[in-house]
């Protein structure tokens, strides 16, 4: 029970670090092969019209969020943003799987080797991390307020 309690307490920290690793890795592999990334996005048939904007916004956002995740002060805010970003990625994948004629990938690095189903599971896992962390942090904040 003690370990479980410990895990619950530390989950915001653990998942923040996981997000940092994921985002820094994903963003840098996208930026290293930026042109390829841009082309893949453009070919996705879903965001075609906005590929240019999205192509630089996504890695930038990932890096900025990683930065904020490092500081406890901004962690809750950053986790909300992570939750929203991961949800967006997941919706994007689902839309591609069901509504697109062909399936290009623009995730970057080893993530490209995941099958689409694995990808959804992977994303949902990270969404869960974000969710639990937010709940934990919100609870802590509320109890602090009450104490004061």
């Amino acid at each position, binding site marked *: 029970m003690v370990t479980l309690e410990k895990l619950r307490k530390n989950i915001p920290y653990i998942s923040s670090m996981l997000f940092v690793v994921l985002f820094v890795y994903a963003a840098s592999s996208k930026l290293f092969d930026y042109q390829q990334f841009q*082309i893949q996005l*453009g070919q996705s048939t*879903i965001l075609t019209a906005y*590929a240019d904007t999205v192509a630089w916004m996504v890695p930038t956002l990932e890096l900025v969020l990683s930065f904020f995740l490092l500081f406890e002060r901004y962690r809750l805010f950053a986790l909300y943003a992570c939750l*929203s970003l991961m949800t967006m990625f997941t*919706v994007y994948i689902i*839309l591609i799987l069901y509504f697109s004629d062909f399936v290009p990938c623009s995730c970057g690095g080893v993530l490209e080797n995941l099958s689409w189903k694995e990808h959804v599971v992977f994303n949902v896992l990270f969404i869960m991390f974000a969710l639990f962390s937010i*709940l934990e*942090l919100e609870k802590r904040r*509320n109890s602090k307020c009450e104490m004061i």
Partner: protein
Amino acid sequence: MKRIAGYKKIIGVVCLAIGSVVLLFLLSEKEVHRNNAFTRRFPPHPILKKRDFELGHNSYYIAGLDRGILYLGNPTTPLYLLKINLSSKDTAQFKIDIKESNLPFRNIKFRLYPPYFFMLDGTVPCIFRGRINEWIARPWSLDSAFFDVAIPVDSQRLIIRSFDGNSHSTILGIIDKDTSTSVSLKHGILEKQIDGVFDVDGILTYSTEPNLLSYVYYYRNEYIIMDSDLTVLKRQQTLDTVHKAHLQVAPSKQGAVTEMQAPPLIVNNNSSLDGELIYTNSNRLGKYEDDNMLDQASIIDVYNWKNDIYGYSFYLYKERSENINEIKVSNNTLYVLVGNRLSTYEIRNSDN
């Protein structure tokens, strides 16, 4: 609410995220598929289905038509032709006999020009010729010019689409055995808008009666009618409003090749020329057209190029996942390669 702190915010954030991606998707879809600037006319029952032939494969192309027999080729079995007798429904596959077969063939295509057939491979490049019913292909022109499309317009002459190294663009040309210069390239027929290669891509088709060619651009609303000397007779617009190709191309990092950056907006997918009429297959929706129609059918538009008028449109019904690979119209009969089938239709509304 105190019990689960922040759940409202979480739901809000998640809904916002889902909503924004779906919205982007819908906006992007709309931009690609729908165009409210033109209206089609769909007269009742313009075509009558005659026959379906199950082919078993979806990779066939139409090599030609000769006295009631349609010949189909297939890049996966390049030396075989499938012969379909349209009245008796008999089908048979047979092999072409090649004299001189140690060439590095990569992309063999057959084209009929009765009483001859041509065997073409623009990557070698080489052109073989033989007689229909003998089916022996003998070298006819070797090392003439590289090409990616070639259509015989005479027993001695072919129209090719090639690449011009000087202008770095796609170009049409003539290979003629009767003249001293065997290959002549014609500048200025295909009009460059962006890079001169991707943006001028299109469908070259030929009509025997009269002896004419058409070139329909994939990415803009224009078609060109030419005679067999490649003199441009007409340049005309289709219904669509896209007159500048929507393409993004970029040189690749290696520098040597150009890549498409985004899926292009395809205005015309397929085309066939039959006398004064030109048939184009477009998957762009006009005004007052049902969105779901594209799942069940492809749209064919008919134009009279001589009078520069749009005639009418009709649907070709198909399964959702099937693609129309090729259409050909000859003597008011429409041949369609769709999915694993060949379908034939009688065109009844030909007075337009």
